[in-house]
């Protein structure tokens, strides 16, 4: 009897708890519902309020080219325009130009250190005077050989050691062969600088020359530059998209640069605008790449400095310090 009583009490208690718990849940749901309804009503009201005609008419051009007149209140300002533009630039910037494989040929017999390429490049990419996407070096291969000037851009290697080491895919190789940088992604670890055997990369150690202001970042121009991120030669990917040749190539007064598409097997001279077969140009003139033995497969070819129209001279010197002029770094 006693046991039974206890059992009943227990059961009542359980039922009581269950009921209470149910009511509690119901209350929560009701609460959420009420808040949601109130929220919806408010949002709807707010939306309608915005639509109240102001009486001011604005003329707009529709997507299919019709000119229409609408009330100012009907216009919705796209606040995400900048983000959307950035995303679109990033998307196409990472993709590259389909079917292309860009190459550059640098004719060392023509270069006389005019440095117009460097100036055009630094201007376009908003670089400081000490930051070089392209750098004209003074080289001498061995003790008794003739020195020469060697413009050095990024070699856009087909086996790039820099993209391999990047921890966040901020530098990458596109389908058209260009190695690009995304300075919205870069964390500033500088592993790519360590990885590049050609010292092609620069870093924004301090605030860049020109402030970003509200400009949208163009990954194909790497402008605006950002403090704490990498920059380097981009083969002027922004120009290539517009069907123009790179800044350096166009700026050269001496016909040093040839630029073109390996797939088409044509390259065009930036100064003379002459177009020739890429394979024939490098075959007939002994074209080579720098430090081929590293296996990086550079896509910038050099034509050797022979039959030069000018004698080498730099700051009155015709011989160079071997510590500062050898491919391979050390003394010859």
């Amino acid at each position, binding site marked *: 009897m006693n046991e039974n009583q206890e059992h009943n009490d227990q059961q009542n208690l359980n039922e009581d708890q269950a009921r209470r718990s149910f009511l509690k849940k119901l209350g929560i749901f009701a609460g959420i519902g009420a808040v949601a309804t109130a929220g919806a009503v408010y949002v709807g009201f707010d939306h309608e309020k915005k639509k109240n005609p102001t009486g001011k008419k604005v003329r707009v051009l529709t997507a299919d080219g019709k000119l229409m007149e609408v009330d100012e209140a009907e216009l919705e300002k796209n606040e995400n325009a900048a983000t959307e533009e950035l995303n679109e630039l990033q998307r196409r910037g990472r993709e590259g130009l389909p079917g292309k494989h860009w190459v550059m040929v640098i004719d060392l017999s023509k270069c006389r250190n005019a440095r117009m390429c460097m100036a055009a490049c630094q201007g376009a990419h908003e670089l400081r005077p000490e930051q070089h996407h392209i750098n004209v070096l003074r080289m001498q291969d061995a003790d008794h050989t003739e020195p020469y000037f060697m413009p050095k851009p990024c070699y856009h290697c087909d086996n790039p050691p820099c993209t391999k*080491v990047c921890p966040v895919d901020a530098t990458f190789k596109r389908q058209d062969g260009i190695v690009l940088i995304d300075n919205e992604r870069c964390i*500033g670890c500088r592993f790519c600088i360590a990885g590049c055997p*050609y010292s092609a*990369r620069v*870093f924004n150690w301090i605030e860049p020359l020109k402030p970003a202001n509200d400009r949208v970042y163009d990954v194909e121009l790497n402008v605006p530059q950002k403090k704490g991120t990498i920059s380097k030669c981009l083969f002027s990917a922004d120009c290539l998209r517009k069907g123009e040749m790179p800044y350096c190539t166009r700026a050269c007064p001496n016909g040093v640069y040839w630029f073109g598409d390996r797939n088409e097997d044509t390259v065009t001279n930036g100064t003379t605008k002459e177009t020739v077969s890429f394979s024939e140009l490098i075959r007939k003139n002994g074209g080579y790449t720098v430090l081929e033995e590293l296996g990086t497969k550079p896509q910038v070819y050099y034509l050797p400095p022979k039959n030069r129209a000018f004698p080498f001279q730099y700051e009155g010197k015709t011989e160079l310090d071997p510590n500062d002029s050898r491919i391979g*770094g*050390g003394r010859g």
Partner: protein
Amino acid sequence: MASTKLSSEESRKVLDKIETDLIRPMRSHKGLELWLLFLGLIFIVGGYAYFIQLRDGLGVTAMRDYSSWGSYIANFVFFVAASLIGMFISSVFGLLKIKWVIPISRIAEMIALAFAMWAGLVIVIDMGRPDRLHHVFLYGRFQSPIVWDITVVTSYVAISMLLLLIPMIPDASILKRRMSDAPKWQQMIYNLLTLGWDAQPEQYAILKRSMRVLMILIIPIALSIHTVTSWLFAMTLRAGWDSTIFGPYFVSGAFVAGVAAVIIAMYFFRYNYKLGDYITDYHFNRIGQVLVLVSAVYIYFNLNEYFVPAYKMRTAERLHLEEMFTGHWAYMFWFAQIFCLAIPTFLLIFKKLRKPKIMLWLAVFVLIGAWLKRILIVIPVQQHPYLPIQNVPDSFKEYHFTGIEIALNILPIAGVLLIITILAKLFPVISVWEVAHEKGVDETIIK
């Protein structure tokens, strides 16, 4: 395990003495405030330096486009190196059942944990965009050795922490009993770490098995943290870094730095914590022998790393090596190699010289040399790339440390000392239960 079992009464007496000896220094706070104030000052100066670096960019350091990795990366390598010692002393020697390391294994683990924890922060100091740290997790790519490094360093921190805390269980139980006057939060920590310890034989079995698993697990992870760290350099095409022996070369160097750090800590705890009965001349003699061994191995790797390319003097390596042997870096190079490696190793061969005070000084030299050696590995190579450095200011061709950089290299060292200070105030620096065990104290009363 123990040589002679003590009777229950003796056991109690011996355990009580060990407990008193090892817990006493935790209660004495003489000079602690001053020490913490000193560390705090370093933190304030370092914090201000970091603020300037964040505001103005990494240009406030000596790093430029050619030497784009500088003293921060060298400091990082040093931190990872010093952290390897925990694995070496407590795992390798522990698994070999070498008894004399028992009183110093916890010191080694504390050093290891402190250095490993700060290593991760040192690398953040070097980042151009620390605000984008999360990109590593969002966009991390498996090809990059940095991602490997983050993976193994975080694993090492986790396992080092377990290797410190699991053997702490019986000691936590003792502390819970003896430190009843400690602040509440401290008692809560002890209570938590006790995990219901009651000195039952089956608990001992579980404890020892867990320790064994951790000791085995930590060996490959510790080896990989420093191997992967060496690969940050060896995976590049640069002459001077492009070396196949970088992994073992770095690991052997790490043991030298770590043993030196342990010797310094042993000396400090022996005299300041008055633990002369536990860390004896015998222990110094033994660890001195270990330093000779690891230094000899490291000298052998140095010979391979410098003599082999120096014999050939290939174009790309020639200028770099000449700068090291006779040029700009020669003073630092020979100071590190002779005064901080060769001479200490030679002197410690003699038993007469393996005495605490002499060893302290030699260890200080070895540790300074270890730090300089990381600078010599990281910076000079970058100043001799394959293509000449031209058309840039002279500051791009040299490396002169800036004040900000020095402050930010000292900050993490102060951080390591702070962690060790906190750990040494919370826990006995010598494992009470293991020492008691060694002395034949009845197992069941250690709680």
